[in-house]
């Protein structure tokens, strides 16, 4: 349902409904570095030495909220990185839960399904890792890389003219509500 609604909305929009994409030479080094940093949040669990899949997700969320207003380019990469981390985190949580049930609580036994899921998790993490590194390298160069599903959504969310977020490196839009405070009478 969500995907259908998104596609329908996307079809209704024309190129005029989006802000132009910045070219690499128009971006500052700092913007490129901040965008790259979003993908490197996958190493957060290593930094804290806690093997919990949720650490990376929390780090990505914190990074997103700290940096999203710095610029559209940064916002796009932070959002794409955050969204792409969700499925991997869920898969890893599933694996952690299953492994704890087997090896710690002794509620289940190791079977072929577990091995299949383990293999699936490894492949999913590898794909996520490779794509994130590739996206980080491209972001460092000021180039966009769109992940399947998440890339178009992040683009739609950030570069659509409907996006009312005010960025630090842009002038506030003309339709920004300035006169919110009014006298009582």
């Amino acid at each position, binding site marked *: 349902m969500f995907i259908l609604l998104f596609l329908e909305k996307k079809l209704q929009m024309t190129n005029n409904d989006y802000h132009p994409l910045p070219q690499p030479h128009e971006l500052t080094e700092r913007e490129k570095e901040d965008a790259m940093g979003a993908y490197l949040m996958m190493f957060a669990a290593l*930094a804290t030495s806690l093997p919990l899949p949720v650490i990376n997700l929390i780090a990505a969320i914190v990074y997103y909220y700290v940096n999203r207003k710095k610029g559209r380019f940064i916002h796009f990469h932070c959002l794409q990185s955050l969204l792409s981390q969700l499925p991997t985190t869920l898969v890893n949580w599933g694996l952690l839960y299953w492994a704890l049930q087997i090896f710690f609580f002794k509620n289940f036994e190791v079977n072929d399904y577990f091995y299949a899921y383990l293999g699936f998790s490894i492949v999913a993490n590898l794909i996520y890792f490779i794509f994130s590194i590739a996206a980080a390298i491209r972001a460092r160069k000021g180039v966009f890389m769109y992940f399947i599903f998440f890339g178009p959504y992040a683009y739609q969310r950030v570069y659509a003219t409907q996006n009312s977020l005010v960025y630090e490196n842009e002038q506030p839009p003309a339709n920004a509500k300035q006169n919110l405070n009014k006298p009582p009478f």
Partner: protein
Amino acid sequence: MKLNITYQERYSRLELLLRFIFGVFYIALPHAFLLFFLGLWGAILGFIAFIVILFTGRYPESMFIYQVQLLRWRLRLNARLSNLSDGYPAFGLESTDEYTSLEVSYPERISRGLTLVRLFFGIFYVSLPHGFILFFRVLWGIILSIYAFISVLFTAKFHKGAHTFLVETIRWNYRVLLYMGNMTDVYPPFSGKETANDQ
């Protein structure tokens, strides 16, 4: 790096007593609570910056600024907890302080080779020699702090020599932290005095 804690001509005795009796509740605990989480975030950013340096030779500027702001906050907290400054340390990463200052110039390049050397051998050529001397400096600093406490309590004056010694110990410690945190390639001198390298 430029670190300074202003020497005051007179110190408040009332504030000294307040800090001594209730300081843990109204200064240490609220600041430590926030700094714990911010420090955790700083550790994550420090680790990511390490990876970035290995591949690009640059410390990401935003992360660098965050680390400096965090160090500034710790400095103004430490200055109050060790009675080197009066007043209440401001909350917030972007807050400024009347009595303490820390300036760290942003390095355009950080040596990748040195970053690896620090990782593998830093404990031997930085942490151990500097830690050994700093350990005894801190011990002497505690004795001086007790002396200064009594001095401020009765005369409202902090012994100038003790103040200088304590500030130099903190400066020395911060230089080691910056070097080990890959924020500078300048090896910390075995001294807390201001040097020609301080920009």
